[in-house]
């Protein structure tokens, strides 16, 4: 959605040189179950980290990392907040300048902990203690070339289901904190508000136009007289929205491989011109939204 008055270009707000999303990292105590779940969604395990217990699952332009390394941030996250999406990686034109700019705008840096011969991937703190990595090696030369080795293909790859890219990332925010997170994403990344749905979901788009986030207030209401919950325990990344060109094919494919669907396929009640379906969690708490633009 292009705003005629504020065209998305580097000159008008793409402060970090953002260029879409590189990967999503999952923290799960049962990586095998999560991996099997991804395969039933049409992802294939294509590579493994050189020194860490991290597996890369891929479909289309989507990279999912399942990190079960005991020493990793993912498992620390898992022990602190429970299983969840612990990190996303953003593609940027230049990591060094993006990282410096983000910190100058008030983002917290994450102390680096790369192993020998590994890339140091800088990260800042996002919502709910998640990490947001910055990556400028994408396209022809990727981080996977350096840090990952291809997995031997001992079984036929999963049949892709036509999932093409990460369309949005859904964030859970404490009720009443929506405005603070809008401003955080405006100031650090240059995201802009697209619309607020009738149900109170706030959609924002990255200045590169390639990624959206949606802020949804948590349903738990604070009781009168009780101290408010620690936001770090309530907030976080709730789910990933994945784009497809044929929602009907995805729904049929999910039916064949046994991926349960909680809602849809239907018109997205939050966004006109979008059809979607929402999966039910198989490996708790992970679920996905699959979207198709119809306009």
């Amino acid at each position, binding site marked *: 959605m292009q705003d005629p008055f504020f065209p998305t270009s580097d000159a008008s707000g793409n402060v970090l040189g953002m260029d879409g999303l590189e990967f999503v990292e999952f923290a799960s105590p049962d990586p095998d179950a999560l991996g099997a779940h991804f395969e039933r969604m049409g992802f294939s395990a294509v590579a493994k980290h050189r020194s860490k217990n991290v597996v890369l699952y891929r479909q289309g332009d989507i990279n999912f990392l399942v990190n079960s390394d005991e020493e990793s941030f993912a498992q620390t996250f898992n022990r602190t907040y429970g299983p969840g999406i612990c990190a996303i990686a953003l593609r940027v034109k230049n990591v060094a300048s993006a990282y410096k700019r983000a910190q100058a705008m008030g983002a917290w840096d994450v102390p680096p902990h790369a192993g020998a011969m590994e890339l140091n991937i800088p990260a800042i703190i996002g919502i*709910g203690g998640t990490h947001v990595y910055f990556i400028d090696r994408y396209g022809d030369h990727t981080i996977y070339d350096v840090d990952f080795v291809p997995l031997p293909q001992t079984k036929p790859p999963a049949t892709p289901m036509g999932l093409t890219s990460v369309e949005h990332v859904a964030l859970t925010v404490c009720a009443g904190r929506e405005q603070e997170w809008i401003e955080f994403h405006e100031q*650090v990344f240059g995201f802009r508000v697209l619309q607020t749905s009738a149900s109170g979901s706030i959609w924002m788009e990255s200045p590169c136009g390639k990624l959206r986030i949606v802020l949804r207030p948590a349903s738990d209401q604070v009781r009168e007289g009780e101290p408010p919950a620690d936001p770090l325990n309530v907030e976080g990344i709730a789910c990933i929205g994945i784009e497809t060109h044929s929602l009907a094919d995805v729904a049929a494919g999910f039916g064949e491989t046994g991926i349960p669907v909680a809602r849809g396929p239907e018109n997205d009640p939050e966004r006109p011109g979008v059809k979607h379906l929402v999966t039910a969690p198989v490996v708790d708490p992970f679920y996905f939204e699959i979207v198709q633009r119809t306009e």
Partner: protein
Amino acid sequence: MKTHRIGINSATLPGTLHEKMDAVREAGFGALVLSAKDLLAHPDGAAAAARKVRASGVRVSAFQFLREMTGDSDREVGYRIDAAKSMIELAASVGCRLLIVSSSTAPTAIADPAALARNLAVLGTLATPYGIRIGYEALAWGRWVSEYPDAWQVVQMANRHNVGLVIDSFQILMRQTSLDLLADIPADRIFLAQLSDCSFDFVTEIDEFVEISRHERRFPGEGVHGRLISDLVARLRGKGYAGDYTLEVFNDENLRSALPAVIARAQASVQWLADKVAAA
């Protein structure tokens, strides 16, 4: 005016952190305002002190002291951001949701309100993941920002949901700032109201502001500016202010007194306030 709406600043009271928490809870005060020193100087270390504060059940309504950024060199900005991060982590460790940032008194203080506002917005971003708000306070001896209307201008320009204003009766009476300007400030943009009095009608030298502020403040009702304080509280209530009040009385004599005696005077001060507000 109920005691549970009123907190008390830790530096107002003599004794150890533990003694203060017990006394505050038993006297029915709603909250304690802590300084970094309360945790960092604790004999068992800051982390142990923070655990004790959380276990005590005493709410920490605000945390201090962070001075606003001065200068704009990378070194200065980096240093100030690191200082802010430490303060935010300490505040979060005791479950506190408000960090007070005071205007700069340094000769290198930034004069440009737009630059001050940008720096406040950066603090607002830093504080967001922890759910902490930034309360900006004008110190009477601030180099450029010395009265609450100046601070309000900067807060407005920062234009951040989690950046608001701290109102302090002592700073107002030092500068003899008109309370009429409060009418322009929405109640929900005021994050904290700090109350203390002083024994002098007029103080003319800036050096004396500092001296009196740090060593000779009085509880509301004990000084000569009772009318201003009760007027301030009445105006805040009148406009629907729903935030915390804090007794912030830095006074050397109090620190040399017995804790129960100081607590009793703090309670008497709350009663005085309640009577004034009821009569208004």
